[in-house]
C-alpha cells in the first residue's frame, strides 16, 4: 500500500530525494595533514590550508579517495576513473577559503543504488552520484551576545555527498534508506554514521504531486541531523506543500530549515542569494585519475555487505528474513551472532541474541561492542542447554546472573547448584508430594479438565526449584495422573 497525504482535493503523493553528507573516516583531512579527530580543543587541528591562508596549496589524501571508491563499490555504483574538483563559491564565517572544494561536474562516483525494505516490500532507491568535498568549520552562536565563535577543526575534513534519485515516496522509506545507507557505510568502514556527532547529515528534497503527474516544485530542507527528524521533516514539509497548493498558492523553490522543537519547516531567507555558487574548476587541483587495477584491488577487499550477509544468514542458518535483517543491521551484532551460532542451534542463538541479550543491552545502556555477556559465554550457555545440564527456565536465571556478574555460565551453574535434575527418583518424589497436596485438582483433571496439566507441571517445577528436566517431568506426570 502506498503512502499518501490526504488533502481536501484528494490524495497527494510524496516525492523525496536525499543528499547525505557522510564524513569520511580517515586520520587526516581531505587536502591537509591536520587531524580529523572529534572533540579536540578549538582550532588545534587546523593547518594553514584549512584556515585558507594565502598561497597554501591542497594535496589530496589517498585514503579519502579510496574510501569514496569503496563506498561507490558498496553502492554498486559506477566508479569514474577520471574526476575533477571545482570551487563552490560563497561567503560564510566558517568557510575561510571563501569557497568549498567539491566535485560538481565530474564526480568520483556515478549511478548506483540502495535496496530498502518497507512493510515487507523491497524497493530499489537510485543513487545519482557520490562526490568528495570539504567540510566547513563550526560556528557557535550562543556563547556571546554580539559575536559568533568559529572553530575550524572540522574545516577541510573530507565529506562524501551521496545524492539519491527522487525515488523515495514516504517518510518510512526515507528512514529505511538512511538506515540502510548508514549500515552499508559502517560495514565498509568509510563513515562511522554517527549522526549525533554530525558525521552524517541529510538535506531533504521534498515535493508533492497528484498521482500520475510530473514532478512539481521542490523545497530543500537543510541539515537534518537524525533519522527520526528526517522522517518527520518529510512528513511536515509534504503536509505544508499540500496545504499551499490546495489553498490556491504556489510552492516556491527555496531552502528551508527544520525546527525539531516546533515540528515545522520554515524559510531560510538568508539563502536566497546562495544558489549562485559560480562553480568553476579549481585551478589548484589537477584531475584525479584512478588506475583500474587499484579500484579492482579495493574491490577484492570489500567486506560482505548487509544484503549479502542477510541472504547468507537465511540460507546458511535457516533464519527468517526478518530476523536476519535485524542481526545484520549492525556489523558487530552479526559478528556476535555468528560467533554464538558457530556449531550450535542457530535459531536458538538468534533468539537469545535478539531477545534476552538485546533486552539486557537496553536495560544496561550498553552496546553489543561492550556487552556484559560475551559471545563465548552465551555460546557456552547454549551448550549447557543442549547437553541438558540446565533447562530453558533456569537458563533465563543463569543469563541474568551472567549479565550481573560477567561470570561464565558453567561457573554460575556449579556455584549456585542449578544443574538440571534428571534423577527420576527425585522427580517422582516431587510429583507424589504435589499430588498428595492437591487431591481436588487431581479429581478435576481425571474428570476431564485437562488444562490443569500445566498447573501440575508448574507445581512440580516449583517444588524442584525450577531445576527439573521438563521432558522427564512431563512424562512422569502424565503417567502418574493417568494411573
Amino acid at each position: 500500500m502506498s503512502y499518501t497525504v490526504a488533502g481536501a482535493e484528494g490524495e497527494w503523493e510524496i516525492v523525496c530525494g536525499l543528499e547525505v553528507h557522510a564524513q569520511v573516516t580517515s586520520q587526516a583531512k581531505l587536502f591537509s595533514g591536520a587531524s580529523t579527530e572529534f572533540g579536540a580543543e578549538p582550532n588545534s587541528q587546523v593547518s594553514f590550508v584549512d584556515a585558507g591562508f594565502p598561497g597554501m596549496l591542497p594535496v589530496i589524501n589517498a585514503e579519502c579517495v579510496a574510501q569514496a571508491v569503496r563506498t561507490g563499490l558498496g553502492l554498486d555504483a559506477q566508479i569514474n576513473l577520471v574526476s575533477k574538483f571545482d570551487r563552490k563559491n560563497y561567503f560564510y564565517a566558517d568557510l575561510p577559503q571563501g569557497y568549498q572544494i567539491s566535485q560538481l561536474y565530474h564526480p568520483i562516483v556515478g549511478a548506483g543504488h540502495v535496496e530498502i525494505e518497507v512493510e515487507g516490500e523491497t524497493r530499489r532507491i537510485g543513487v545519482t552520484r557520490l562526490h568528495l568535498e570539504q567540510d566547513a568549520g563550526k560556528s557557535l552562536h550562543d556563547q556571546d551576545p554580539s559575536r559568533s565563535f568559529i572553530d575550524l577543526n572540522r574545516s577541510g575534513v573530507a565529506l562524501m555527498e551521496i545524492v539519491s534519485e527522487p525515488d523515495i515516496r514516504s517518510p518510512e522509506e526515507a528512514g529505511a534508506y538512511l538506515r540502510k545507507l548508514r549500515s552499508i557505510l559502517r560495514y565498509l568502514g568509510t563513515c562511522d554514521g554517527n549522526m549525533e556527532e554530525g558525521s552524517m547529515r541529510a538535506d531533504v528534497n521534498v515535493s508533492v504531486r497528484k498521482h500520475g503527474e510530473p514532478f512539481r516544485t521542490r523545497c530543500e530542507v537543510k541539515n537534518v541531523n537524525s533519522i527520526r527528524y528526517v522522517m518527520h521533516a518529510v512528513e511536515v514539509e509534504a503536509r505544508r506543500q499540500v496545504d499551499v497548493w490546495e489553498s490556491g498558492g504556489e510552492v516556491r523553490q527555496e531552502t528551508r530549515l527544520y525546527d525539531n522543537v516546533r515540528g515545522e519547516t520554515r524559510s531560510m531567507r538568508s539563502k536566497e542569494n546562495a544558489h549562485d555558487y559560480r562553480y568553476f574548476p579549481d585551478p589548484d587541483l589537477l584531475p584525479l585519475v584512478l588506475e583500474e587495477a587499484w579500484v579492482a584491488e579495493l574491490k577484492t577487499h570489500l567486506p560482505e555487505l548487509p544484503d549479502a550477509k542477510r541472504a547468507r544468514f537465511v540460507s546458511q542458518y535457516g533464519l527468517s528474513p526478518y530476523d536476519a535483517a535485524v542481526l545484520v543491521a549492525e556489523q558487530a551484532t552479526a559478528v556476535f551472532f555468528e560467533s554464538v551460532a558457530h556449531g550450535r542451534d542457530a535459531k536458538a542463538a538468534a533468539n537469545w541474541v535478539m531477545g534476552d541479550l538485546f533486552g539486557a543491552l537496553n536495560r544496561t545502556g550498553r552496546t553489543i561492542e561492550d556487552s556484559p555477556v560475551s559471545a563465548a559465554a552465551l555460546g557456552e550457555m547454549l551448550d549447557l542447554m543442549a547437553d541438558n545440564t540446565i533447562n530453558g527456565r533456569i537458563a533465563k536465571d543463569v543469563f541474568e546472573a551472567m549479565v550481573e556478574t560477567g561470570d561464565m555460565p558453567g561457573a554460575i551453574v556449579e556455584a549456585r547448584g542449578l544443574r538440571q535434575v534428571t534423577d527420576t527418583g527425585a522427580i517422582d518424589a516431587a510429583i507424589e508430594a504435589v499430588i498428595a497436596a492437591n487431591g481436588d485438582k487431581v479429581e478435576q483433571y481425571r474428570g476431564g479438565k485437562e488444562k490443569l496439566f500445566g498447573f501440575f507441571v508448574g507445581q512440580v517445577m516449583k517444588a524442584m526449584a525450577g531445576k527439573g528436566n521438563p521432558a522427564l517431568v512431563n512424562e512422569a506426570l502424565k503417567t502418574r495422573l493417568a494411573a
Partner: protein
Amino acid sequence: MSLDPATVKRIAQLARIRVTDDQVAPLQSQLNGILGWIEQLQEVNVDGVAPLTGAADMALRMREDRVTDGGIAEKVLANAPDRAGEFFAVPKVVE
C-alpha cells in the same frame, strides 16, 4: 554578450565587493572588455577537444593518510581581528 548594470551590481554583491553607483559604469565597460576577449576565443572550434584544466599534462599527486599538521592554534589565530579564547570571534551571524 554584454553585462547590464544590474548584473554588475549582482556580481559585486556575490563577491562581497562594495561598488558605488558611480563605479558601475566604468566596471561594466571593463568587464565587457574582458568578455569580448573571451568571445573571440569562442570562435575557435573545439569540438571533440577535452577541456584543459591545467598546463601540466599530469594527474593529481596523492599523499598518505597521516597526521602531519595542526597543533598551531596560536599561529592560525595570529591575524584574527578578534578572538575569544581559542576561537575566532566574528560579528554575530544570525540565522
